[in-house]
């Protein structure tokens, strides 16, 4: 009866691979997240390529590579063409992250999986939503509502809620419960009893150390800088780095430090510019400070934004702190800087998030860290000498070929455009048509020669005319006053002022970040790689600033949300299994951990039907208020309305008596102060509440699991026959509603 829901993981289950899941709701296919890792391994996208064309909508949850990295590639190569939904920051910061990835990659390899243009066109199809905006899908997805909600972790980070017919499917990965400097905590806890919850087990085994990490972080940095060393923080392009920047800004201001801080990515300046305009997506404290004093927290006072490494090299010597992308150390500025700095014992490489599996960062985070690592140093160098000549020759050849192709295409087009003309022109052309045929015949013997010169590997159809300059018949219409014109062609555009302005403004969002690559593309260049071994002598520290809920809070949240069905994805095999066992025991009896490409059906086995509540019935119903709920017992007779809906009418015969129900959730800890406020001596003794001298109240039976079990609380009240007994019983009853 309910809405059918199927989940098929395409990547990122039982391991820490990128996230990508197919969720199908009544036949409407959502691709939730479209991630890739820092290695850009196309084999990871194998499962996606099989289903890409069937996808109806894409939902993105976070602006980092693991959540949206494969979008440009999938759009370009895998035939993904669905509309994409994300929040504004996910769109914008995701775009910048991808630029940064591309430019970093391009610098060290012949990266050809996608280009900047592919990134642009992929992100063009993004529909931007705000938090808690209920977006009603139309067409095939009629009746489905999607809404992004605050997830924490990254700016714009989203918990997706997909609703159909009152049943909620919630996708929540990488959320954070804690409120941070620039972000609010997730609102995941405000959802209760969704039909399906898809969540990750990434941090299930990982418990955050208590708060001291902040001091550790600051101590480590200041110690190194004071000792004259440099600090490298490998960071993502536009995600967690924002939080780190704010922490550093504060620390610098507080202790009036004057060591330079550099934020070095290919897109750092645009990132901060955009982030400055995203205040409404940030936490309360940031918006508040702006509203009261117009202080934009991202007007960074101590941080210098750099977009290429030579600027860093030109910076004055002396201890400095550099935040550089990529966090994985696989490519990008962080990679180069690491290689330079690793061999100096004074330096510090401070990791703030766990590196992706199989990357250099992950290797270095091992305990104990490796003494030396092999790295490939690649550089893009301009071509010189013979190579340059060879390249230029190749280019001219290519250009020629292209020109030839273009001319062929043009010819083809002109033929095509002439063709129908011939047919259309009707009677007067009959003779001509004959002529054409005749001339074709005539040309035939000579044809070979032309073809050799002009047409390469292309045989013109026998009906085609001989090669000639494009000739277009002027078959415009005439009437008594001359040529018939279309007045629209002669209207002077009023919008010219706007047009001009648009030109100044331009549509070119990637100017400054793109410029680097434009220079790089313009000059013929090649990639030179050499492998070298780097002695890791510098200090390596890992301090968790991932901003994800840790194992403990994941469990708390899950038991609070208490979904009817739970799907676990993304997390190592052990973490997934651990969380599964935990949830089976404490959260709900239906926990699924699908494998890649395994489709699981999480359609709710709920029965449900809709009825109309007639006015007559409702006028006799007395509601009792209980928290957010109002409840009442109804006995009703089923009838039908004019349009065939079932409706509930008041019952005609006296209602059959029903077993009375006590509604309410009693907490012993709450009962105690309540009873003592009524003048009864109460104390806890051996798990029971002793009231007065003789009466005891106990809770029996299993507590805990909310979704399953009987769900009914068992309370026992015992005592001898005395006045107190009845008094206490009355107080106990007052805690419940009797229906």
């Amino acid at each position, binding site marked *: 009866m309910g809405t059918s829901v199927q989940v098929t993981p395409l990547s990122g289950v039982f391991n820490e691979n990128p996230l990508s899941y197919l969720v199908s709701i009544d036949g409407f296919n959502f691709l939730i997240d479209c991630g890739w890792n820092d290695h850009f391994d196309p084999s990871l996208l194998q499962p996606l390529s099989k289903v890409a064309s069937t996808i109806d909508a894409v939902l993105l949850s976070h602006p980092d590579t693991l959540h949206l990295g494969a979008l440009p590639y999938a759009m370009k190569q895998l035939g993904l063409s669905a509309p994409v939904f994300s929040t504004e920051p996910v769109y914008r910061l995701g775009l910048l992250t991808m630029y940064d990835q591309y430019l970093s990659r391009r610098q060290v390899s012949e990266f050809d999986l996608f280009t900047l243009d592919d990134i642009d066109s992929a992100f063009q199809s993004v529909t931007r939503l705000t938090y808690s905006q209920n977006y009603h899908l139309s067409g095939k997805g009629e009746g489905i509502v999607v809404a992004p909600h605050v997830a924490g972790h990254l700016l714009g980070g989203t918990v997706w809620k997909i609703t159909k017919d009152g049943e909620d499917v919630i996708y929540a990965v990488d959320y954070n419960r804690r409120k941070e400097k620039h972000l609010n905590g997730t609102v995941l806890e405000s959802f209760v009893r969704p039909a399906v919850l898809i969540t990750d087990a990434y941090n299930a085994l990982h418990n955050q150390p208590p708060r001291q990490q902040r001091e550790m972080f600051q101590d480590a940095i200041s110690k190194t800088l004071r000792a004259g060393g440099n600090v490298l923080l490998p960071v993502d392009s536009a995600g967690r780095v924002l939080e780190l920047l704010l922490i550093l800004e504060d620390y610098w201001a507080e202790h009036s430090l004057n060591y330079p801080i550099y934020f070095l990515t290919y897109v750092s300046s645009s990132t901060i510019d955009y982030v400055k305009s995203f205040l409404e997506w940030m936490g309360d404290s940031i918006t508040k400070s702006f509203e009261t004093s117009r202080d934009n927290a991202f007007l960074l006072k101590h941080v210098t934004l750099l977009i290429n490494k030579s600027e860093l090299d030109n910076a004055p010597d002396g201890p400095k702190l550099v935040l550089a992308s990529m966090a994985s150390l696989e490519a990008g500025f962080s990679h180069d800087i690491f290689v330079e700095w690793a061999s100096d014992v004074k330096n510090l490489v401070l990791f703030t998030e766990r590196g992706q599996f199989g990357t250099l960062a992950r290797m270095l985070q091992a305990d104990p860290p490796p003494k030396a690592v092999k790295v490939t140093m690649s550089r893009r160098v301009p071509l010189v000498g013979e190579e340059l000549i060879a390249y230029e020759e190749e280019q001219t050849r290519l250009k020629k070929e292209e020109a030839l192709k273009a001319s062929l295409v043009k010819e083809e087009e002109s033929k095509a455009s002439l063709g129908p003309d011939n047919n259309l022109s009707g009677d007067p052309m009959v003779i001509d048509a004959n002529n054409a045929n005749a001339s074709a015949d005539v040309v035939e013997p000579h044809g070979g020669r032309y073809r050799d010169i002009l047409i390469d590997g292309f045989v013109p159809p026998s009906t085609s005319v001989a090669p000639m300059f494009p000739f277009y018949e002027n078959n415009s219409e005439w009437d008594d006053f001359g040529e018939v014109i279309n007045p629209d062609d002669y209207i002077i555009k009023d919008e010219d002022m706007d047009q001009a*302005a648009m030109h100044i403004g331009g549509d070119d969002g990637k100017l400054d970040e793109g410029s680097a690559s434009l220079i790089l593309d313009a000059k013929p260049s090649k990639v030179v790689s050499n492998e070298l071994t780097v002695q890791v002598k510098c200090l390596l520290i890992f301090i968790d600033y991932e901003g994800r809920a840790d194992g403990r809070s994941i469990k708390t949240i899950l038991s609070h949300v208490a979904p009817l069905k739970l799907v676990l994805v993304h997390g190592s095999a052990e973490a997934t299994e651990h969380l599964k066992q935990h949830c089976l025991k404490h959260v709900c009896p239906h926990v699924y951990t699908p494998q890649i490409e395994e489709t699981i059906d999480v359609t709710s086995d709920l029965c449900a039907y809709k009825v109309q509540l007639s006015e007559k019935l*409702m006028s006799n119903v007395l509601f009792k208020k209980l928290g957010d709920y109002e409840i009442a017992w109804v006995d009703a007779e089923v009838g039908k309305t004019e349009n065939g809906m*079932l409706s509930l009418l008041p019952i005609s015969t006296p209602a059959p008596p029903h077993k009375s129900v006590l509604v*309410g959730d009693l907490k012993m800890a709450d009962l105690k102060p309540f009873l003592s406020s009524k003048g009864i001596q109460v104390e806890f003794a051996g798990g029971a509440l002793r009231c007065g001298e003789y009466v005891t109240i106990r809770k029996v039976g299993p507590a805990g699991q909310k979704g399953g079990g009987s769900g009914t609380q068992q309370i026992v009240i015992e005592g001898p*026959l005395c006045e107190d007994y009845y008094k206490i019983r009355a107080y106990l009853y007052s805690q419940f509603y009797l229906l």
Partner: protein
Amino acid sequence: MTHATKAIYKLLLTDYVKVSKVSVEDMLFDEQDINRSMDRIEVLDFHQTVEVNGIKFWCYTAGHVLGAAMFMVDIAGVRVLYTGDYSREEDRHLRAAELPQFSPDICIIESTYGVQLHQPRNIRERRFTDVIHSTISQGGRVLIPAYALGRAQELLLILDEYWSNHPEFHNIPIYYASPLAKKCMAVYQTYILSMNERIRNQFANSNPFKFKHISPLNSIDDLSDVGPSVVMASPGGLQSGLSRQLFDIWCSDKKNACVIPGYLVEGTLAKTIISEPKEVTLMNGLTAPLNMQVHYISFSAHADYAQTSTFLKELMPPNIILVHGESHEMGRLKTKLMTELADCNTKIITPKNCQSVEMYFNSEKMAKTIGRLAEKMPEVGETVSGILVKTGFTYQIMAPDDLHIFSQLSTTNITQRITIPYSGAFGVIKYRLEQIYESVESSTDEESGVPTLRVHDRVTLKQDSEKHISMHWTSDPISDMVSDSIVALVLNINREVPKVVVESEAIKSEEESGKKAEKVIHALLVSLFGDVKLGDNGKLVINVDGNVAHLDKQSGDVESENEGLKEKVKAAFKRIQSAVKPIPLAAS
């Protein structure tokens, strides 16, 4: 309110407090009050749905000023749209007011401009720039008296752009002389996301609100008034302040120009000079010839008639309430809308201040029956019994056992165990109980082997020891009552008071008890409805506020003109009857 509105709100009111010249006692509020109100203001983003007590609301862009919003409120499926000040025309920085996805049931709409029509925006802009261009070229000065917020920013954008396109003007300064506008610039530079695509695209290159050719001006002393210049100054009405100071200096030179871009308030100097008088009175009381050119080019971001009528035609709300507008203008708008929307049965209301408009909507209440209760679809005539749970305006019906699955509520069973001192023979109790209750089963407890009695499958009695018996049951009203009667019975045996003798209680004649019941029913009905009389043919006549209902005591049938009263009487009678008649013990 939206983020931008909140930021501007604070600046605006703080500015008001600072410039208002009334004494401290007359001040309506001070800065502290503003700060306190800031804590109470919840912000929301466009389209973000907020739910309070089941009432949902969200907002759309209104296009009037940065952060302006139209609110849609959804109460149990009835939607009300409040446009506030809105404009359906996209300008340089604001998005046009959106067309809501759903049609509202009531549309509360502004009527500031009534049936007037605006010139197209590009023509107005062309006039504006032409005036400035020609004045500047002739070596004159341009004064633009404008309110600090809203239109000022739009005009500055136009000017900055015009200057960028005309390098020959680059040495001619443009000033905006308003401390408030200067402060608000930070807000404009930040909430780019509330603006239109054009600004957002420009933002990719550089912040369009970081003007290249325009600078702020703090006071008239900072203005080196030596050559042509463009100054935008507040207030817009030229009542006092910087715009008036400049006006006084510049008004007698015919090379100069004054461009009035906004709505004109009656009684201000700006309104006066529109009619181009020969002379004006300066602030110092002297008169001076008005030689400067005066132009009125409205950039007001309120909807005109064309926008209002197309907006309403697209939305097709069944009820329209016109607000905010001068009463004549509103009347004309109403008439014109009436003729235009004649064939779609639209109600247009123009309430006066403090006059409330009441409308009734009978929305169907729909409930979803879920869980065990819904395992099979019921046929017509069957009964459905369960817990009706209402959250906000959604209803669900479910079996008590499912309550914890579909809501955060849970059910509880309370088991009671009570020990009663009793030293007599257990058999006596059994004997006594059998005299009162139909079903008394005796057995022995499996664990302790003591004899037990089970009364009506509800209450269990156990002989724990020679001195005590214990009794346990699960709480519910009937079981509690049964247990009470058992306790009384056991205590009576203990006290050895006169035994309850098996006597065929003098059964009162049917008639007698019937009479008694009738009396009780009558008394209860009187207490409920007041005027209850015994009518002819044995029916009771109940009179409530002129509504009369006839109640047949035998069948419980009620006849009445008034449906509400009929239902009430019926329900009351049913409840009274169930109270008067004995409770069937077989209930379970």
